[in-house]
């Protein structure tokens, strides 16, 4: 199989209610990525689009609709596995190029959650089983609260320890020009914020957002001709668990470990806690970042909070995570967020992250996204 690299990236500002239409968001992110890649839209031979439920934007067959912002007359694939979509966009573009089918792929993630009224949360009501779960009138936060409570009980972790992730990520977002919610907060701010669904407080959660991101992915010979160093896609993996989330031990995401092992094997990594320099674990909630760090086997199970307290995951730490702000700081436009995290790694691995650049020299990074009702996870390993 051919070697594959990312040579350009772009994203829109992430906002609660964006002025641009979904297509305009896609175009804005795409042209920035193309500019950095020094390619024109007519050079692109294939397009991959990732976007989560049509019922956010309120346009059916969203993949086709969004394609209007991605040029014309090209083969296009849409991917959608909830929040895991963002990383899956790159995994999908990877096999388009690795197989030899395409040479230059424009890979895009977009989400416009704001059109759904009265609140995008209402769309999430569809995630539940209509007969066995929806009649209890749960909202999406219940799922995370249940998982968080189980995680805390199983490994004896306190809310204060978890809140540090929110503090770290929102602070990391300061200096990210695209971020929706950068800011300096404290653990007390998190603990004192409104209790939504115990144990989840308002500041434990990432916001509802609109935004788009895009990358240009090419084959090796095109990447090597480019003036800036490419970032190689060295390992891809993805896995789904069943939909019986109530019948599983939700303290640990086994499906993430499955996906991670596939990606690590491909990248020749057998001791991820030593061989990974920088990580972007999916952080829609603060406890999720810790749980995903453990699922990625970067620390032993239940131990991530201890490492966090010691500063291990800070920008100047041993294994920086969510160094550009993560979802908690930048925002969470569902399908685009995983791709935003990959773009952060892209910048970091090329030394282009500016004010957000991590202290140590980094060459191998892992990005991960997660989605649906405790079901899907996607992993990608990048190297510079």
């Amino acid at each position: 199989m051919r070697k594959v690299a990312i040579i350009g990236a772009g994203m829109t500002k992430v906002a609660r209610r964006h002025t641009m239409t979904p297509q305009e968001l896609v175009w804005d992110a795409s042209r920035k990525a193309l500019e950095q890649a020094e390619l024109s839209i007519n050079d692109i031979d294939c397009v991959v689009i990732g976007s989560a439920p049509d019922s956010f934007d309120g346009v059916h067959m969203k993949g086709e609709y969004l394609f209007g912002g991605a040029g014309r007359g090209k083969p296009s694939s849409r991917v959608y596995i909830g929040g895991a979509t963002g990383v899956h966009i790159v995994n999908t573009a990877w096999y388009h190029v690795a197989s030899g089918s395409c040479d230059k792929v424009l890979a895009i993630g977009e989400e416009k959650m704001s059109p759904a009224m009265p609140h995008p949360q209402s769309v999430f009501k569809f995630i539940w089983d209509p007969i066995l779960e929806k009649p209890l009138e749960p909202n999406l936060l219940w799922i995370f609260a249940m998982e968080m409570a189980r995680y805390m009980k199983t490994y004896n972790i306190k809310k204060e320890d978890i809140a540090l992730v929110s503090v770290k990520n929102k602070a990391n977002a300061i200096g990210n020009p695209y971020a929706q919610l950068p800011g300096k907060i404290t653990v007390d701010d998190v603990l004192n914020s409104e209790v939504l669904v115990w144990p989840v407080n308002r500041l434990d959660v990432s916001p509802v957002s609109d935004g788009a991101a895009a990358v240009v992915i090419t084959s090796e010979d095109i990447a090597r001709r480019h003036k800036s160093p490419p970032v190689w896609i060295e390992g891809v993996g993805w896995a789904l668990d069943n939909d019986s989330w109530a019948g599983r031990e939700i303290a640990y995401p086994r499906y993430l470990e499955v996906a991670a092992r596939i990606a690590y094997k491909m990248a020749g990594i057998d001791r991820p806690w030593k061989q990974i320099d920088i990580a972007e674990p999916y952080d829609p909630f603060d406890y999720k970042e810790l749980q995903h760090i453990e699922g990625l086997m970067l620390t032993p199970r239940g131990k991530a909070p201890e490492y966090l307290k010691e500063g291990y995951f800070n920008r100047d730490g041993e294994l920086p995570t969510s160094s550009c702000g993560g979802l908690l700081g930048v925002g969470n436009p569902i399908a685009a967020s995983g791709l935003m995290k990959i773009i952060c790694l892209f910048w970091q691995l090329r030394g282009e992250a500016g004010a957000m650049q991590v202290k140590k020299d980094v060459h191998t990074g892992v990005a991960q996204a997660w989605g649906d009702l405790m079901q899907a996870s996607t992993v990608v390993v990048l190297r510079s």
Partner: protein
Amino acid sequence: MGGSHAGINGGGPQELSGNMTQIEYVPAAKYSYAAGQATSKFLLGLKEKKVYGRLCKKCGRIYVPPKMYCEECFRPTDEWVEVSQYGIVQTAIATFVSWKRERLETPIIAGIIRLETPREFGDSYTFPGIFHFINANYDEVKDLSIIGKRVKIVWNDERVGSILDIKYFEEVKE
């Protein structure tokens, strides 16, 4: 005529404000879901105050809610079994936001209950678990002491063949 479209390259505010044109649409989709064989029998069983599961004889797993095929063995499950009404609380939460996004004074408590079954499974990662309400007080949820407690189904007096025929799970006082 030249000029430019306003606000593309940071030339205007990115956040949507009142003066940007907006268009409204009210969707009118309604759905009729078929419960299927397994769920239908399960729901009709709840009406009779019984909890039914499906047994796979090959690996010994009991599925509650029932499934007509075994996920591990990838073969049809073999028979219906009646399952215990007792279980252990796996996790519990307390919501202060209602279905209609209103603030609640007293939280609604719900969680996952691992039902007791006649046989033990090989792996502790999966089990027959039900997502439902728990009748407990907020303090027990807050200090996580509710997790691990043994609970039992309390039935609704009026049952129609719905998951709500179970009123909630309540701690068993030994």
